[in-house]
């Protein structure tokens, strides 16, 4: 007797279809589980055996072979218990032949027969849809996650018995369908911190608006308690709202990382702030089959590195590839894994060890110490940071003042959105979407200066000793400021402001 059930496996971010086949034949009673399996998969034998017994089905005392194919790569992770059990039940003629041909099954079994949640459901449901399957059976706890995929019937099951009854038409389970669009609308950024909660800090707010509009990486410098973390947390609130496509892509990463709760998918723009003791592996993604690291979890969102001079050098070096290529490639003995890592980097630093430089009443660090402290920021990293801004300590007046003039995030977001529209239109023939990604030839093409602006830059170049690289940064930022200003040309004012966001030690 032979029976086959479709299932899926995660290799990094990619889901692959696999088959779980069982064969029951005469011979010495045994159960063999084959197919290049990792330990956790091999353990499924005991779980399935017990779960079936406790659900009322005894495995016949025959020679049983279970194969998970194809056999050329290692199978790891859980989620194969349910397909294994169903394939056995198929061999035992308890479920109908061919009923699972167009179905993908996933789920871990408890010893009592309950179906437990697993990670990586969303990418596998998407895979099932792409492969043209009609139905997926997934753990009930993962139902919201799977239900966002349109065009496929998504069934959530709680126990093995319920699954059998459903397949044998003894009970009805309605397929669930959730609309990402609708969920995003209902969500509408509830979690975000609003900009009007940030007191004072006009320059910082303006810098963040520019950063959000052109996706320019940002460095905040300032004494402790100046609201660096709070402002960084508020940044997603002025970035464009997530599109359903972005939302699904982010949710896939969070699904693989096992970070989606039962509420379903990730509706907020990611904000990831790893502690400065984070290891390089945790930042890039680590493990034999790497799990997404902090850079990938921040995809399409904000990666906030507080106290950036305190991070280990090896850790910071990890950021090079993601900042350059918007993805991270992790090589392991058996394969190479690619994860998306397209984030807006926001870094924060104290200006010196004590944090109060240049306030000489409080800071006793020598010039050399100050230089050494900021010198820890590596050159390649600073090259990738366009905007640098000072945060100041919050004064009591700021705290208690009822500041009616403070703009809400929504107002700022509208400006950011229209600036993004302009950029999208501008770059429709180039494969970038924001100003920060312009390469030197594109800068030349899109940041044309007239005679008047050229003169300003020439004077600045000579008097303020600007490097060629910094010159390009100024143009990119000025382009974004002009976009925010709804201006097609870069005006002197845009250049003046762009030059105000300089980093120097």
């Amino acid at each position, binding site marked *: 007797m032979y029976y086959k059930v479709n299932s899926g496996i995660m290799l990094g971010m990619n889901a692959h279809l696999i088959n779980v086949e069982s064969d029951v034949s005469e011979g010495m009673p045994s159960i063999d589980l084959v197919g290049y399996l990792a330990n956790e998969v091999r353990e499924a034998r005991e779980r399935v055996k017990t779960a079936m017994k406790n659900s009322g089905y005894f495995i016949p005392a025959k020679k049983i072979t279970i194969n998970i194919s194809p056999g050329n790569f290692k199978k790891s992770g859980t989620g194969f218990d349910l397909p294994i059990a169903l394939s056995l039940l198929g061999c035992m003629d308890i479920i109908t032949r061919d009923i699972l041909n167009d179905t993908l099954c996933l789920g871990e079994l408890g010893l009592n027969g309950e179906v437990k949640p697993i990670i990586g459901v969303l990418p596998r449901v998407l895979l099932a849809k792409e492969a043209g399957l009609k139905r997926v059976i997934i753990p009930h706890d993962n139902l919201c996650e799977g239900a966002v995929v349109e065009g496929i019937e998504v069934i959530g099951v709680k126990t093995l018995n319920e699954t059998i009854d459903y397949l044998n038409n003894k009970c009805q389970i309605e397929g669930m369908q959730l609309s990402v669009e609708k969920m995003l609308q209902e969500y509408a950024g509830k979690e975000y911190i609003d900009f009007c909660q940030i007191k004072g800090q006009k*320059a910082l707010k303006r810098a963040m608006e520019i950063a959000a509009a052109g996706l320019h990486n940002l460095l905040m410098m300032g004494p402790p308690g100046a609201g660096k973390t709070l402002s960084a947390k508020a940044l997603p609130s002025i970035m464009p709202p997530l599109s359903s496509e972005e939302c699904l892509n982010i949710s896939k990463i969070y699904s693989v990382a096992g970070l989606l709760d039962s509420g379903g998918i990730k509706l907020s723009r990611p904000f990831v702030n790893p502690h400065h003791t984070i290891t390089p592996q945790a930042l890039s993604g680590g493990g034999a089959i790497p799990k997404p690291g902090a850079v990938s979890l921040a995809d399409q969102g904000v990666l906030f590195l507080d106290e950036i001079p305190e991070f280990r050098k090896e850790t910071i070096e990890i950021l090079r590839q993601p900042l350059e290529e918007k993805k991270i490639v992790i090589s392991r003995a058996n394969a190479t894994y690619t994860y998306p890592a397209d984030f807006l980097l926001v870094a924060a630093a104290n200006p010196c060890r004590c944090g109060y430089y240049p306030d000489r009443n409080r800071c006793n660090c020598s010039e050399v110490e100050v230089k050494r402290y900021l010198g820890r920021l590596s050159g390649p990293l600073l090259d990738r940071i366009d905007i640098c801004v000072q945060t100041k300590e919050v004064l009591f007046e700021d705290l208690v003042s009822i500041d009616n003039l403070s703009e809400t995030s929504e107002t700022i977001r509208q400006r950011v959105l229209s600036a993004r529209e302009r950029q999208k239109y501008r770059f429709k023939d180039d494969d970038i979407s924001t100003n920060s990604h312009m390469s030197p030839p594109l800068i030349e093409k899109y940041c044309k200066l007239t005679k008047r602006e050229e003169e300003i830059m020439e004077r600045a170049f000579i008097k303020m000793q600007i490097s060629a690289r910094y010159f390009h940064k100024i143009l990119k930022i000025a382009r974004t400021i002009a976009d925010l200003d709804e201006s097609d040309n870069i005006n002197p004012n845009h250049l003046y402001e762009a030059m*105000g966001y300089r980093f120097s030690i």
Partner: protein
Amino acid sequence: MDKIKYITPFDEEYPDKLRNIDNSPEGIYIKGSLPNKDAPCVAIVGSRVCSEYGKAMAKEFAKELAKNNVSIISGMARGIDGIAQEAAINAGGKSYGILGCGIDVVYPISNKRLYERVVEKGGLITEYPPGREPLPHQFPQRNRIISALSDIVLVIEAKKRSGTSITVSRALEQGKDIFAVPGRLYDACSEGCNELISQGAGIAISPDIILKALGVDSNRQDSNAFRVPKLTKNEKKVLSVISFSPVSIDYIQNTTEISLQELFEILFNLQLKEIIIDLGQGNYIKKAPA
């Protein structure tokens, strides 16, 4: 490469100014030359950790004094010492560095370039044998030589308790005049100076006062040091809130209530006019006259 000379009180060259003090050095090592016997000498001293105001003042006083052929004596340290000596040499004057270590030991290493220039345009003097490490107790000791070799000790900036106060007490024991540059109250870097003034030190409100005390006729033309080029109304307004201690753009904006956009333009123009410096990260400071 200059030779290192060693002279003792038995040599004629040995400065009289050193003979007459308590704990007179048994011998001194010299690289370069000794201060001219008749030339007026002023010690410019101050903290290693100093404010932009201190830097500006050290430069200004050293430059003006050096222009009037006053030799500048100091301790070659980071901060005020080094800045003053550098400025004196830049102005074409002479400067002498008194070391707290062996004469061939460069400390701090960041002053290496200054070492070479001081040897060329003045001299290095120490009582410690070549190769001696810069040990902490040697620095207060060398301060007595700084004050002994000078006619006036000028304190630019000092915190309440600092090495500068040792130089000042040695100078008082040796009967030298003390001048201090006044600072703002509550400014930690100027606390020492203001205290000296309250105790009766001379108030160094301009280099002329020092020159007068030395009995040197000032050949100073009307100094253009603090002259300000023509400015617009808003530029003046902005400049009025930027001082020698760094201020953030937020502060400037709050105080002047000029819109950010306009402010960026004004700040840019002030930089081009070389009146302010952009310290990066949105901090601005008044530029010290060159």
